[in-house]
């Protein structure tokens, strides 16, 4: 009905993204069910484009809005007219809509969803718990999406994607206190062994946190970041090479610029079309660009910008280059080379990285201090620094770890970081 309305109103350029989501959810308190939920919703977003001239300069305006499944012809027609008017007020530089041959519109059936949630619950039920180390609560979300992307330049593509989420809280108790480890895992493909590993790693963190002492006064030592903080750190390098940030001059990195100094590990950063277990495996992006694998930094040298079709055109990047999975190659360090005193942070309350300035900071939920002889678990206090102060001496692990849509070095070593004790 929406396409009919667009045609009736003579809309020449448009895009329509329709996502029907099926979701099964279970919420546990301990091993008992708090609530079960199911969802079936369809969200259809229409974008209308209007070409016009502003002082002789060719422009393309756009405006987007949702058409609800409960809307009738008159309502849809009014929304489209309003969007067309709104688009005429937007005087952005002209760009072409994606017109490559992204055409695959086949029938898709969602069959596995009930089986997947049962598998996840059954995996959790078989995790060995103890009186002093157990699952406090968990939330499981299994989501399947049928995505259809159509535009007026010939894109007509339908695909199935899945993204699953498990929030889990692990508690550890000793005679003095009770501590928790909070984790939020996202994954596409369910794999019993992969999920068990994630949960048992969290059990290990809880075991360590109960033994942790307050972060002491430490200075002039290397700071090692492992865990999800490494992803946040590398996201900075991805963001500064994103076409939107380049176009809007948020950052001014140029092709062939090198991000690390001569003594640092000159690692490569790649976009990959698919990554096992990732919840971001999609064949095309929201504009209809086919997703492919390509290198963004080759041995620390920027070789390709990436991002949305509109901004890639604005910066005269000819190729379609959008990405949702990233592989950051390992560096040169083995863990047993970390023999000097150092502090390692494995879990932050929240690791904040500012893409405009490179500042980073985070409260330490769990870390370790190695004084050259003994390694002790620590908690509390914070670290802070700037990514740009660490480019000359940046080193990272040879070994890599996966966090949903990122494969990153298992740890990074930073020399210019301030530590606040707890």
């Amino acid at each position, binding site marked *: 009905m929406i396409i009919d309305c667009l045609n009736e109103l003579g809309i020449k350029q448009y895009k329509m993204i329709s996502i029907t989501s099926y979701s099964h959810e279970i919420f546990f308190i301990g091993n008992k069910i708090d609530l079960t939920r199911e969802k079936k*919703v369809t969200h259809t977003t229409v974008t209308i484009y209007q070409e016009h001239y502003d002082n002789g300069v060719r422009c393309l305006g756009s405006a*987007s809005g949702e058409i609800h499944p409960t809307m009738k012809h008159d309502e849809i027609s009014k929304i489209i007219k309003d969007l067309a008017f709104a688009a005429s007020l937007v005087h952005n530089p002209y760009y072409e809509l994606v017109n490559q041959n992204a055409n695959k519109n086949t029938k898709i059936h969602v069959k596995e969803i009930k089986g997947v949630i*049962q598998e996840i619950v059954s995996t959790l039920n078989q995790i060995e718990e103890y009186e002093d180390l157990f699952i406090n*609560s968990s939330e499981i979300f299994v989501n399947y999406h049928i995505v259809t992307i159509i535009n007026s330049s010939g894109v007509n593509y339908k695909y199935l994607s899945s993204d699953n989420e498990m929030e889990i809280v692990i508690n550890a108790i000793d005679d003095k206190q009770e501590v928790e480890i909070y984790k939020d895992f996202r994954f596409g493909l369910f794999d019993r062994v992969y999920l068990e590993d994630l949960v048992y790693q969290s059990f290990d963190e809880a075991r360590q946190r109960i033994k942790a002492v307050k972060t002491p006064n430490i200075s002039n030592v290397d700071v090692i970041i492992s865990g999800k903080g490494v992803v946040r750190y590398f996201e900075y390098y991805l963001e500064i090479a994103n076409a939107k940030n380049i*176009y809007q*001059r948020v950052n001014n990195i140029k092709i062939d610029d090198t991000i690390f100094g001569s003594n640092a590990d000159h690692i490569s950063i790649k976009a990959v079309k698919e990554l096992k277990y990732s919840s971001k495996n999609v064949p095309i992006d929201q504009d209809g660009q086919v997703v492919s694998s390509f290198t963004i930094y080759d041995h620390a040298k920027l070789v390709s910008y990436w991002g949305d079709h509109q901004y890639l055109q604005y910066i005269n990047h000819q190729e379609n280059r959008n990405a949702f999975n990233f592989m950051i190659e390992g560096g040169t360090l083995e863990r047993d080379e970390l023999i000097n005193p150092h502090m390692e942070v494995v879990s932050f309350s929240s690791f904040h990285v500012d893409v405009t*300035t490179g500042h980073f900071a985070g*409260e330490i939920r769990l870390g370790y201090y190695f004084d050259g002889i003994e390694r002790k678990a620590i908690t509390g206090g914070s670290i802070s620094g700037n990514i740009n102060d660490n480019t000359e001496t940046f080193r990272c692990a040879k070994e890599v770890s996966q966090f949903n849509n990122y494969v990153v070095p298992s740890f990074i070593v930073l020399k210019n970081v*301030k530590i606040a004790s*707890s």
Partner: protein
Amino acid sequence: MLINCSNYLEDKIDGLQSLIELLLEYFDDASILATDVIGKSMSASKYETTIKDHYLAERGFVARVIKGGNLFEYSFNHWEEISTLKDSILKKFKEHSAMVEKLELAYYDKAVVNKEIAFETDVREVKIGIEEVSLEDIILKLKSMNLYAMSLSNEIIDFKCSFNYLITSKVFVSPTKTLKQAYMASDVFGFVIARNDQNRNVSYHESIGELMGVEILDAFEDRIPEIIMATLELFNAKKVTPGIYDVICDPKVSGLIAHEAFGHGVEMDMFVKNRALAKSFINKKVASDVVTMRDGVSCVNQVASYLFDDEGIIAKETIIIADGILKEGISDYVSANRLGVKPSGNGRRESFERKVYTRMTNTYFEKGNDSLKNMISSIRYGFLLEGMISGMEDPKHWGIQCMIAKGREIVDGHFTGVIIAPVILTGYVPRLLQDISMVGDETFLQVGSCGKGYKETVRVSCGGPYIKTKARLG
């Protein structure tokens, strides 16, 4: 302009009541929340203009049914014959029950049926409704604010100015309740990026938001020069030397502390899971005598002010801390029943598609008697902390993380002109609150978004007066 409940929802009320009647033939209890939220986000920067739906705009339904201990919800956004909807909900409930049986799982407890009776409607007014202004005028206003900000310094790379509004209509129907509410909330957000001749970037943001209409745009325009000044002074910012300092927190920072400390800390769904230390501190001292803290929908006209929550509970105001004593938490309906307390009307969903959790509304420290001038004079060495970036809660261990835009150095009661930025404030919540020695004489609230863990975003406000305390900065 009066904001009325959407015609779409008004037309559906009879059908929803019929659906409840049919569901009660099988279930112990049934209720439905219907939402119709219209909203747009518009922005203008040097590089582009955007017009799109607000990320919280939605239209849909969530049905909650109870049978024995089995609490089940179904979210949907299509509409069918009432009998078909009933069959669909019943079928899904039975499938889930069969799965639970197959996996040999047990339910947490017997869910309690809500017998409270209420038939109320709440509609609110704004000065200038969205239909009273042309879209063209709003876009022109945003563009003019961008140009004005850019004209104030040639070091400004961009000033992105966005106007966002939501007109929320909600209807809650259960066997004993039919509730309707409608309100409009708007906010304006300004984000500045500047770069100096040494190629150093700084950024800063400011926002204002309330239950207001388009008139909010004028209120923001007046603040542009101070936003630009606040950005440019970051070029001279020094790094923090980690340590414990006397600090004065501006209302944004005190609001962030209130929110992260004893906002998240007293969400009572976390009491049920034994995830909040506050559970064992009710009626105990957790802050200095000068600290009183509230959460509530009726005490202020802010973005999280409403008549009823997403479980149909008429919301109230909660005094969380009174004169330093932790008095009570905030709760959703299910958690309150499990704990044997009266629900406070803090059961909120990110959208009709998500579960209810206990969530804050408008959370703030009450004003005291101290002037900012006296607070500054009382500091021998310390900082005035200004502007919030983000925060993170830790109710189990009473840790706190606050990312703060900047600190202004104070020596012997005077500003030295030295700025530190950015600043991370961490510490043990009761220590931080027990060190509060002075409380300002005026409270300000700030619009914000709040997650629970790493998800479930809802609109909230938080704030307070200027407060003086000691804090660990890094």
